[in-house]
């Protein structure tokens, strides 16, 4: 471990368009604001629903200025997909925390550039440092009967690694974000993610 933690917390969130990254980053930003922090969040919309790579950046702290995280200064990197985790891994601080949903989504063949999905993705991510956690979030969400709750399992894992925001803030966010029919399953997903990382 090197240096002091930066006064501003830099959270990088990655995934594939249409799989819940933007909903997750929205909750992270709203939760940080509710916990009393100054917040900035930035991402590129546009073609995000059409299966492309999606990256969102959330920063919170006493007084945050730039909506963008300096290139290699992410304190926590949450990825909902293995390949997208590898793609942006270089932006994590050497002593940062990596949380990755153990799921592969094969890109549509583009007919150009490398096409093979990196089979050793999990190993490469584990080698990234002591902070790497591979979370079976998708499996847990499927087990709970709601694959779309994968991102809330990851929110639970994130909450376990960010004690500066009480977990009650996150459960309140889930309660206000989801319609009543989906609250219980998303809360359960969050709880599973929280416990999983606490135990690890």
């Amino acid at each position: 471990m090197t240096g002091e933690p930066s006064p501003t917390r830099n959270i990088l969130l990655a995934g594939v368009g249409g799989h819940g990254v933007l909903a997750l980053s929205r909750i992270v930003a709203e939760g940080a604001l509710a916990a009393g922090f100054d917040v900035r969040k930035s991402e590129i919309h546009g073609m995000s629903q059409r299966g492309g790579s999606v990256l969102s950046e959330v920063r919170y702290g006493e007084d945050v200025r730039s909506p963008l995280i300096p290139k290699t200064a992410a304190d926590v990197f949450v990825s909902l997909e293995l390949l997208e985790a590898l793609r942006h891994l270089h932006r994590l601080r050497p002593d940062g925390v990596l949380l990755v949903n153990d799921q592969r989504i094969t890109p549509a063949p583009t007919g150009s550039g490398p096409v093979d999905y990196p089979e050793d993705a999990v190993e490469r991510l584990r080698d990234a440092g002591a902070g790497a956690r591979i979370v079976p979030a998708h499996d847990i969400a499927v087990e709970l009967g709601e694959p779309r709750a994968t991102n809330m399992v990851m929110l639970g894992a994130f909450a376990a690694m960010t004690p500066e925001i009480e977990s009650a803030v996150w459960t309140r966010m889930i309660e206000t974000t989801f319609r009543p029919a989906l609250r219980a399953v998303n809360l359960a997903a969050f709880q599973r993610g929280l416990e999983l990382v606490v135990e690890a």
Partner: protein
Amino acid sequence: MPNPILLSGNEAIAEGALEAGAHFASAYPGTPSTEILETLSRRGGIRSEWAPNEKVAYEAAYGASLGGARALVSMKHVGVNVAADPLFSSSYSGVNAGLVLVSADDPAMHSSQNEQDNRQLARAAKIPVLEPSDSQEAKDFTLRAFEISEQFDTPVMLRVTTRICHSMSPVETERDRNWPKAPLRDYDRDFRKHVLLPANARPRHVFVERRMEELEEYANGERDLNRIEWGDRTVGVITGGVAYQYVREALPDASVLKLGMPHPLPRDLVREFADGVDEIYVVEELDPFIETQVRALGIPAVGKDLFPLTGELNPDLVERGFQLSGNGDLSASDRSENGGPAPSLPVRPPVLCAGCGHRGVFYTLSKLGLIVTGDIGCYTLGALRPLESMDACLCMGASIGMAHGMEAALRAAGDERRVVGVIGDSTFMHSGITGLINTVYNGGSSTVLVLDNGTTAMTGHQDHPGTGVTASGEPGGRVDITALCRAIGIRRVRDVDPYDIGALETALDEELSVDEPSVIICRAACRLVDRTPIAPAVHLDIECPGCGTCFELGCPAIDERDGMAVIDPEVCCGCGLCVQVCPFCGLRIEGHDTAGAV
């Protein structure tokens, strides 16, 4: 004041317009501006409209202003080119109630064809520019823009960028408050001001030049809009927009002149600032708009030598620029122990959705080897591998005019190749129709494909005149594309099922062989709007021999494993294109006997 709420820049602009009591808003969707009008129509209490294009949107907002109602018009940067004609002249005729034009620029071209800097357009049109640095300022400056507009009798440009539009930060406002409307101003006929005959326009130009002088005086004096933050006097930085935030992070102790109103440049304030510091730097995205004007004052400012002219800035580029100048904190840069991006990872670009009605059209165009002039929309993805069936894509509506001109050139050269124009329904309404009128009028014989998915898909599914539903979700008048084409004199207008490759080939063969203009309309609902399966998912009846033909469709439901096709039943919606192209008839849809008969 209640607790601040998290808003995107676009949402904050909408809140600002509501707080300013605006009565009327018009826009044409375009990333990164779209959510401004969407937020207004969702919030209600203001008349919000989608216009068929930015020129009409501007004219409608100008009319509302003339009639006495505060009006906002929003568009992406290239939309201002379309609206430039009424914009430039309305600078002369001025306003009645406040008129605010939001120009959403896109440095780095995240979703655009160029990265023009619209501060330059405002300067050419001789109107003032406000430029916020976060969501709070986006709201506050919108209010301020209405005031300036009325005080100085001018349209005002609120210039924002993708990083302001699509970033979120806390805003002090009251969530969902119904703000009172601004009082409607009396409308009085004013021939000399509002009818821009040459004799009237000449004195108005004199007025405009005097107005710019008065605005500069205002800009010098309004220290909340243009603010000096004194710090370390060895380094002074002039900046604005999101770049201000990067500067404050890179050099927290430096003296900063933050320009919230970069045009007209407050020259006295710039001189005062320059006199107070040893060195002057200018940090701005895209063009050296401020820098060249500062240097023209004889102040040796440094800007684009250190900070890139192209693309968007970010904290690292700003920090590196200051390091190069000898003022940055060098210790901050040794963070990259994880190295650069991992090499040789497969890319994941956006793709046409599984079941997208555009896919079969581009597959067929590619197969027939036609020259294709394209247009702006999701279907621009047809230019990419593996479909690769688009030769040119320039701007909204250009496909039809380009097809006409290219055909003329190829014929003159004796080149037998044929050209087709491809355009979406919303883009056709925007500015495709005028191109088609040109083809009819000038005796062209182009074939135009209108890909009608019943929405403005790429910007997030906004309605348009062809859908007959207004921005507020109410039933509106509906423009029938077929009837419209016939009315302007196209005799050959036909509908073809875009999921039937054989029918598409036949239609194209027939239309390209006649010597008159023709329109083929391919209707299929956008798959992100209508998610009901077209048919049961396709499955493989035989062991896939791995010929790879179906990969040429570029369908995200077809995965390749060891050279063989694997259909993902979760993603497949049974459009049946792969069934039609499979040469081994190994792909089937349950309940359908013949390949392709979907």
